[in-house]
């Protein structure tokens, strides 16, 4: 079997798993206990198929018999597998962090879990796409469940956030389809192949359409990453969505977006022959998207007073960081983008798990009322040793400061990819992004490290132990620490 087809195996497992959840629900409509464990097991199984598909793909790379002609000629590069793992494990973490509200939501946990699985299947499929048709379909499979999940919290704000996300995704979908049509018109094929793109860029008649099509495809997927100007839905959805759904948005949804963008840019990154000067317009478009997101996101984050607002705006800024190295259109840039996505996803998951622990002042759980402001985290490190240490570490990873070494290394990787291609102007602009980001995270950090207020400390300390949150938090921190000490662990898979 060919690696391009085998790489869809994880997506297939997750998709069949979603059907399974819905079927079991028909048999046991009342129980609310089995859905989450089953969903997590399915996602772990799907994750396990990623290396399996990989290994077989290695051994049988030359055998292309019985496959559709053109698709068989393209191999899926390994960064896509890393994104598949991020998407699937992120979805598992999302299931673990899913709030109790979803039990009472219409359809109960079964619908929520099935939708998470479908979204994961779509993201895994998007990362492995080798043609624009699969890409367009996969992205929608990843997106629509997320839209519904935001709404399913059932609150007024959540439904409105869902509408905002939906409208953005509809417009983006239309842009993506237009890009796909232009791509088809220019290349006479929907396959994302380096040979075809090379030929298309050589001909003067097809080059503008090809470049515009590529840019539109990237722009159409930009909303999944919350890139400016498709970021408006993000703050509302993060604030109003359930923490588990936010976890889905920051991992699976992002992985789908990054995977899609990588699939579209792959012909430019892995060319059979170097295209000189052909990509200038493309580089400019990517750079504008990336820089605008990085700066606007960071400035927005500076104005927040609440954790989820900060996370939402910093997501916009971090999305700029993910896209930035891709402007280099090199293998090193792609590795930097995927490495950055990995660090971002892990650190944000840890922060969400800390929020789910719900030990901030004044003793409120997130599900019970409005989320605490930063001031609610005053002296958090003293009150909750485990949560506090994880909070500080994850924030430092996002800010890119030691001891969050992995967060710093991926930032160095981004800048190295840019400087290697002579894009030092972007690297210097990125310095502004670094500092604004640090300033934004420092406020939450300062509150957590600050002194404990005199009263109310005991009330807050008595939070109930959320074992799921502890699991996500521990696993995320452990991975980040391992990657900080030994970044070479994932490095081979990023190329």
């Amino acid at each position, binding site marked *: 079997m060919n690696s391009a087809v085998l790489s869809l195996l994880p997506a297939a497992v997750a998709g069949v798993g979603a059907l399974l959840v819905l079927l079991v629900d028909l048999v046991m409509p009342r129980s609310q206990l089995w859905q989450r464990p089953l969903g997590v097991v399915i996602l772990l199984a799907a994750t396990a198929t990623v290396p399996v598909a990989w290994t077989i793909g290695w051994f049988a790379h030359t055998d292309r018999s019985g496959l559709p002609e053109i698709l068989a000629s393209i191999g899926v590069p390994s960064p896509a597998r890393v994104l598949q793992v991020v998407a699937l494990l992120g979805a598992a973490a999302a299931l673990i962090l899913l709030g109790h509200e979803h039990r009472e939501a219409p359809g109960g946990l079964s619908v929520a879990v099935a939708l998470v699985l479908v979204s994961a299947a779509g993201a895994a499929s998007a990362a492995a796409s080798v043609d624009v048709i699969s890409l367009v379909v996969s992205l929608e499979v990843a997106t629509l469940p997320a839209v519904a999940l935001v709404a399913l919290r059932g609150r007024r704000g959540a439904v409105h956030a869902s509408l905002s996300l939906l409208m953005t995704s509809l417009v983006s979908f239309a842009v993506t389809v237009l890009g796909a049509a232009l791509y088809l018109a220019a290349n006479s094929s929907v396959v994302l192949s380096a040979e075809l793109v090379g030929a298309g860029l050589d001909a003067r008649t097809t080059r503008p359409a090809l470049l515009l099509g590529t840019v539109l495809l990237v722009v159409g997927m930009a909303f999944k990453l919350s890139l400016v100007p498709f970021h408006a839905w993000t703050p509302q959805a993060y604030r109003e969505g359930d923490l588990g759904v936010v976890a889905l948005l920051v991992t699976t949804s992002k992985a789908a977006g990054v995977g899609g963008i990588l699939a579209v840019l792959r012909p430019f990154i892995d060319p059979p022959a170097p295209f000189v000067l052909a990509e200038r317009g493309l580089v400019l478009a990517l750079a504008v998207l990336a820089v605008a997101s990085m700066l606007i996101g960071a400035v927005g984050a500076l104005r927040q007073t609440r954790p989820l607002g900060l996370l939402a705006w910093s997501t916009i800024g971090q999305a700029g960081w993910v896209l930035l190295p891709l402007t280099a259109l090199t293998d090193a840039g792609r590795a930097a983008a995927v490495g950055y996505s990995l660090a971002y996803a892990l650190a944000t998951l840890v922060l969400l798990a800390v929020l789910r622990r719900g030990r901030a002042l004044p003793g409120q759980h997130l599900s019970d009322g409005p989320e605490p402001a930063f001031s609610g985290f005053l002296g958090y490190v003293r009150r909750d040793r485990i949560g506090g240490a994880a909070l500080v570490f994850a924030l430092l990873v996002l800010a890119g400061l*030691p*001891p969050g070494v992995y967060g*710093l290394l991926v930032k160095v990787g981004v800048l190295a990819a840019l400087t290697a291609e002579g894009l030092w102007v972007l690297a210097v602009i990125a310095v502004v992004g670094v*500092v604004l980001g640090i300033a934004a995270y420092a406020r939450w950090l300062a509150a957590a490290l600050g002194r404990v207020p005199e009263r109310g400390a005991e009330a807050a300390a008595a939070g109930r132990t959320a074992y799921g949150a502890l699991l996500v938090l521990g696993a995320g921190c452990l991975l980040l620490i391992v990657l900080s000490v030994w*970044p070479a662990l994932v490095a081979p898979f990023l190329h």
Partner: protein
Amino acid sequence: MVLSAALALPAMVGALLVVFGSALGARPSRWVAGAAAVGSAGLLWAGLVRGEVVDVLWVPDLGLRFALRADGYSVPFVLLTSLVLILVVAHTAYEVPSGGSAGGYLGCVLLVGSGALTAFLAGDMVLFFLAFEVVLIPMWVLIGRWGDPHDLAARRDAASRFLLYTAVGSTLMLVGILLLAHRRGSTGFAVDAVQGTGPRAVLIVLLLVLGLAIKLPVFPLHTWLPAAHTIAPTGGSVLLAAVLLKLGSYGLIRLPVLSAPEAFAVIAPWLGLAGGVGVVWGGLVCLAESDLKRLIAYSSVAHMGFVALAVSTGSQLGIQAAIYSSIAHGLIASLLFILVGGLKHRWGSASLTVAREPLREVSPRLGAILVLGLTASMGLPGLAGFWGELLTLVAAWSPAPGRPRSVFVASAIIAAVGAALAAAYVVRVLRLVWLGDAVAGQRGRPIVRVDIRGVEWAVTAVLVAGIVWLGVYPYVLLDLTVVAPAGPAVAP
């Protein structure tokens, strides 16, 4: 292996103290931290004597190696850091700043020390940058958490200013390092220097100098320093002055001067001029400053002006002068900050506008050491400060060929004027503090009659010995730094 252990020991102990320090109590954590600092110093000594070199590929994607090695340029800084670390830990026996547990404080101190030692020993530019960044957060916590308890807003402002300025500087430096590494094909220090003065080479040097000038700091990028020094607890101020600023001077020598000498020559006159102006500016502010701690901080700006001027000359003598000035300033500023911190502890503030009892009478030992520290700071011959300033002026008089001599001579004259200002403000401080103008026991105020003794006495005595030793026997340091480093040759 020994070198790695010497760095890992304070890092591990520091991290453990940060997490579990509050449960340990002040005295045990001091012993633990002290053991870590002394142990690290011992291991470092062993590693340096054996001439050990560590070189392991760490991040293959970036070509980043975990490479440690020492040469004549880094050894002085390593020894200074190691000594200051021990002294700061010991000093907590006299005073633990309020704001948190002693364990947490000592943990942060050890982390700062470990990061700085790594930076000085780094044989890889990106590793140098990473170590540079390691120092950032513990120092930020030291200022923000254990800083001056009187003014919360000022503390927050000082801490975030320190964090953001340094982050700007280090990230600019990172971009420069990456461009340099791409140009040289390796992130190691020990590669051939970049030749030529093409626009790209000048850009690289500009980024490096700009980034490091914030850290050093060079006028007019110094505005983070007075706030941070004033607010930081005594140990934090000492670390800032003796260790963090030295990261700037060491980086300037190691990166632009040695790695791209020809392109650096294009920018050097501006750096030299900024250094000279910084000396005068620092002196002028000191003349009018009313807070003793802030005054010492501004005198640091002046001293770092000398370092910038020395570095910019680009000659072997200039580099030696820069290292000499840095080490001397490390010792002198540490001494002064410990003394002033002690005074602040005794008086409750360090304001010069309040009439005080003459130190000469109430605390003669403290007064005598303060006189010695301040006169060393103004560059009295026979003490450490003198040689650094003298060598700098000599180096500026004859800069490396290819540099506009007139600019350097002018800078040297400006700096000399600044050095004269130092005498003026030192005399002013001595008159106010040492001679005093309040009669003991006046207006019913209690007489502060706690002279320096015990640990504080021992710590200051060590620093005084160092200052005097370097003052009367400068060759100990000059011989060390004259050895050509195991890297690219210095510009002729």
